[in-house]
């Protein structure tokens, strides 16, 4: 192992971290909103539920990489689209990558949300009804928080898997951590050192996120009452 080389590579790869993070944050937020919409659609009507199921089936049944290629190179094949108002957006590799990651994340997140919603006890809902809560209030104050807590471990795994998935954005010319690593390999011809450096960056990032999610799980645990929280550790 050439330590001087590794010391030189690390800062080069870290330069891609902001892009990696922004891809992850944007696609996770977009994915979460879409997942909520899908859940709404599922609850709305038979047709809506069929659509939501079909959406999840398509996006979970195919590799993310092919979804990215289809959106980036596939859509650009149509002159009508290239002359449309959407083109200034879809022209950008960044937008295409976020779009693909977001659509993919929505499929997985909506399934996680479905699991969480199913776990909300009917007792809690009845209690809310008896207390005279309106449907939106109930949703906002009872159902969604309970479902969120229930789904948190699975959602935490989804967050880390999205952070890792941003590495695929490098196939559409984006220079995030993996993209920079690939470029560095083709310049220095030293694959193992460079990819190991990149792996360490992701590993640290994912470990931090996992810790954060565990901490959040602890905080939101039902068996921990606020009174206990305030007691000296």
């Amino acid at each position, binding site marked *: 192992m050439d330590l001087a080389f590794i010391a030189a590579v690390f800062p080069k790869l870290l330069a891609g971290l902001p892009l990696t993070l922004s891809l992850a944050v944007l696609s996770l937020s977009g994915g979460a909103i879409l997942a909520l919409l899908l859940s709404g659609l599922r609850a709305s009507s038979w047709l809506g539920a069929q659509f939501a199921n079909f959406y999840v089936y398509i996006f979970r*049944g195919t590799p993310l990489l*092919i979804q990215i290629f289809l959106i980036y190179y596939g859509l650009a094949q149509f002159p009508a689209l290239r002359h449309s108002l959407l083109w200034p957006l879809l022209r950008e590799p960044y937008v295409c990558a976020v779009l693909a990651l977001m659509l993919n994340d929505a499929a997985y997140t909506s399934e996680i949300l479905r699991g969480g919603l199913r776990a909300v006890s009917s007792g809690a809902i009845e209690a809310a009804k008896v207390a005279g809560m309106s449907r939106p209030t109930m949703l906002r104050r009872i159902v969604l928080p309970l479902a969120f807590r229930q789904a948190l471990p699975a959602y935490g795994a989804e967050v880390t898997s999205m952070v890792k998935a941003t590495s695929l954005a490098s196939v559409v010319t984006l220079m995030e951590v993996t993209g920079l690593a690939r470029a560095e390999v083709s310049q220095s011809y030293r694959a193992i050192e460079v990819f190991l450096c990149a792996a360490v960056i*992701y590993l640290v990032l994912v470990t931090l996120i996992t810790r954060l999610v565990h901490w959040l799980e602890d905080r939101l645990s039902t068996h921990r009452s606020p009174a206990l929280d305030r007691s000296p550790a």
Partner: protein
Amino acid sequence: MGEAFTLLGFGPEGWGHALLTAGLTTLAVSACAFACGLVLGTLCAWAKIAGPAALRRAADIYGVVLRGIPDLLVIYLFYFGGRQIVTAIANQFGHTGPVEISGFVAGSLAIGLISGAAQAEVLRGAFHAIPSGTLEAARVTGMRRWTMFRRIIAPQALRTALPGLGNQWQSVIKESALVSVTGLVETLRAVSVAANSTELPFLFFLAGGAIYLAITTVSGLVFRIAEWRAMRGQPAMRVGG
């Protein structure tokens, strides 16, 4: 539309044969990777449940590392580094010179390694779902460990693990698309080549998506049937994770 049929067909101008072969390669890589993952996962699950402290720790670290690194990087690392490791081992064995490790082998091993970490969790969960009473009963009747594993633990755990393993198989198929970066001509690589050659990316990536969807759908059904058969005659059981 007619042009699309010609291009996807099996005629001299059609890419049908290439796509069919590539689809089979995807299946082959996935099957090898899944088998690797099952072996690794079983070993790790055992290490975590009953292994000595050092092995348990090793299994834990393996799980954390593999779940923390993007699949793409694991494949790159295996593709470029795997050969050196294998060669070092082979040279210890008295072998001289390098040992070839093809894109197929590197890809299967890399995805097997990724999947092994996840399968270990599935299998461990399944083991813990075995009612402790059956284990005690087996012990009381004086069963040896291996007999107990074969006749009591494996059948019960496998039944509980089937849905989780089914999910893992689906993930493996999708991850196998990443092996295309090594140049192995599996489905994604084949449709990329065709897309570039014909300059019709939409058509061919769509066709690629359809191939993956067909594989995941059919194998999903197979797993569903296997689950149904395994559950026959069993009381409805809630599977705890």
